[in-house]
């Protein structure tokens, strides 16, 4: 099939960008979306033009690197699917496809479709961990964990940190991402001792990165490739509520060790 692409091109962080139009001829339905872009890029490079920069690595839906808006939907709109796993058989001959980077103040565009998502890392650095050192830990079976809790923690832990939730949210809110980590650790006995401090510092870091707040619109859950549930946002709200009631002193972000 033959497609027309309208792709966001932007030289670097400080330059202005624009939508450029490219033809994508002879696209096979068996290609993944990224393979389609690879082929377009081969064509551009053969002509000596700079290829469209986009992020990807594992190409099997688990590393969370790939990231782009396709026709206004993060990851392209197939349920539970990252763009690297999206295949061209979902499009039809003659389609025009608009491709844009994630857009959020906290995710500046570095080039074309590549954004800087280090804000997510800083949120984890602020408290998304259990403060234990290597060694000296009790036997793995010393603390039984109810299967339902283990399963729920795993549901939350499945987040791949791709940022689609932020990209899709009308407020560019990172609540789904943050709530997934807070909920995972708050559900397991290993994470409970630190839950107050964790909720406070991760939320505080989230705010200072410039993400928006959640107004419960639900787009994040709909585009999330790991189908992380909005229930976790409710759980974060609950955790934070308890935390501000219990919290004697304000924890600072990054007060790690």
């Amino acid at each position, binding site marked *: 099939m033959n497609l027309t692409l309208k792709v966001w091109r932007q030289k670097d962080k400080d330059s202005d960008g624009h939508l450029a139009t490219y033809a994508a001829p002879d696209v096979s339905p068996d290609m993944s979306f990224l*393979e389609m872009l690879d082929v377009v890029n081969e064509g551009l490079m053969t002509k000596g033009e700079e290829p469209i920069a986009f992020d990807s690595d594992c190409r099997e839906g688990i*590393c969370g690197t790939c990231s782009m808006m396709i026709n206004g939907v993060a990851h392209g709109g197939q349920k539970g699917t990252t763009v690297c796993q999206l295949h061209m058989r979902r499009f039809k001959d003659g389609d025009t496809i608009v491709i844009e980077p994630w857009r959020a103040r906290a995710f500046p565009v570095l080039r074309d479709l590549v954004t800087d998502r280090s804000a997510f890392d800083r949120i984890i650095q602020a408290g998304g961990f259990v403060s234990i050192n290597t060694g000296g830990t009790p036997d793995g079976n010393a603390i039984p964990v109810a299967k339902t809790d283990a399963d729920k923690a795993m549901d939350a832990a499945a987040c791949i940190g791709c940022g689609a939730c932020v990209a899709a949210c009308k407020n560019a809110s990172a609540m789904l991402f943050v709530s997934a980590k807070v909920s995972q650790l708050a559900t397991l006995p290993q994470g409970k001792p630190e839950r107050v401090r964790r909720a406070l510092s991760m939320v505080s870091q989230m705010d200072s990165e410039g993400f928006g707040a959640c107004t419960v619109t639900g787009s994040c859950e709909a585009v999330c490739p790991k189908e992380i549930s909005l229930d976790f946002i409710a759980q974060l709200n609950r955790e934070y509520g308890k935390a501000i009631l219990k919290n004697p002193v304000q924890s600072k972000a990054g007060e790690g060790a």
Partner: protein
Amino acid sequence: MKLDSKIPEGPLAQKWDRHRFDLKLVNPANKRKFDIIVVGTGLAGASAAATMAELGYNVKAFCYQDSPRRAHSIAAQGGINAAKNYQNDGDSVYRLFYDTIKGGDFRAREANVYRLAQVSVNIIDQCVAQGVPFAREYGGLLANRSFGGAQVSRTFYARGQTGQQLLLGAYQALSRQIGAGKVKMFPRTEMLDLVLVNGHAKGIIVRDMVTGQVTSHAADAVVLATGGYGNVFYLSTNAKGCNVTATWRAYKKGAAFANPCYTQIHPTCIPVSGDHQSKLTLMSESLRNDGRVWAPKAKGDKRAPGEISESERDYFLERKYPSFGNLAPRDIASRAAKEACDEGRGVGPGGKGVYLDFADAIKRLTENGVRERYGNLFDMYEKITGENGYKTPMRIYPAVHYTMGGLWVDYHLMSTIPGCFVLGEANFSDHGANRLGASALMQGLADGYFVIPYTIANYLATSKQAKPKADQPEFQRALGDVAALTKRLLSINGKRTVNSFHKELGHIMWEKCGMARDEKGLQEALRQIPALREEFWKNVKVVGENGELNQNLEHAGRVADFLEFAELTCQDALHRRESCGGHFRTEFQTEEGEAKRDDENFSYVAAWEFAGSDKPPILNKEPLVYEEVHMSTRSYK
């Protein structure tokens, strides 16, 4: 070059404990004075960086992805082994040790493997304490599953995302140290060279992949945990960015490269769908528990699978290996599929695939029963191929999956360059000629959490080297070399794209140095590869500039290294005139077509030493001495 494996004295089971006592320590106040560079933040790198920072060292960590959480370890699905014997089914440290040695076809070092089995139990404790949501039984205790190459259930897992969860555990530990200021993290930063001062590894040269800036970093020791080189085959189950650059450039600075020809091919991957294919996707091996593998008996049979009657099908694994049937080990199953395709009996586009048929299983378990067990895999298969695996048989084909070879390291995990340590898939230790499922994750974490923190202290306490500075002449020179290489790549301005070279190289490697190798093919490859390399340096087209985010330039640098490395791999494969594990030489097989080892002549580690760009590499041999186990022939008939 002298290969000193530094295996401690004493009985196998006590080597590590005794050795830990003998190792020199760095006192806590002094740890603060040491800087350590860790390249790579996969399981091995992240765990090492976090642990060393907890101990007090100043760590700088580097990865090429935009976040340390995205290292390729994230993709591991199946699980991680540990000799916990929670199932009370007769597991023990010794059994895990033995299974790993045997699985590696008796080409790994006993002492290392034993230590791996010993610390495996600590890994699980550590990960549980970090909040890794391992699967649990209703009673609240950890669940286990069984995995290839073992008769006990010792594999711990977190759904089909074990690698992800373990990596996130390590990433979180690392993040905690970054937050505390003990680790400085450099994401989107690629290592392009290793810097030696006075013969010791004292720093690296890196390129900032956003700005293109090339800088040097000095430290008292350098740890490489940069993963495997499977992408030399172009198509593999590895992530797009996996590369050999870091280890290759260390090799060129004097680190010996061991057993590069040992590559593992995984039998159940989704076949190539066309020329556009950019990577291959693995489907869990567990599918072979209920699926039956077959190919049409007739050559070039293009009918739909449903039209091929039972008598026209060849269930070749069941035919060749009646006792193991569809569960034959990875290498054997892979080779059998390739043979069927080579005979012209392959199915699907290009005839590169065989069927994995669930019709019988559906009859036995009903469609829902099958869905319960493998639903997510069927969904993934459908996403990628657009076919419904319940209705028509799945198509599978083997793909490159793991590389057992890597930089040679001693018992301390130190390469032949003092101060340069190598962890995880990047080193050669532990898996011999073939890796068992669920033991790579174990090795990465063992190296990072429990081995390197001890052994690096010994080096730092005893090496007595001056503190390096990033503006020393050695660094300046290396910076200059890297800049010159980049400039050269950008100035060729030829006609062919980088990717076309990578594809062609991959094709040569897959055909001549893939699942089955022979002398003729390898020699051909050894002619083709240098020619391709020469063409690359004349005719490659790299667009853009250095001073920007330039993915084409990154790729070009990696392919340039693959083009050199591929030659070494073929040389290694050619020289090893035996078949063992992932290295199958068609000349050396039993009458039934099984791998035939030559323990007399090849029971050694081949550690290749760089002798100069225009000279052949030098082969060094580390003999493998088996004190505990008796070498036997693998049989799965």
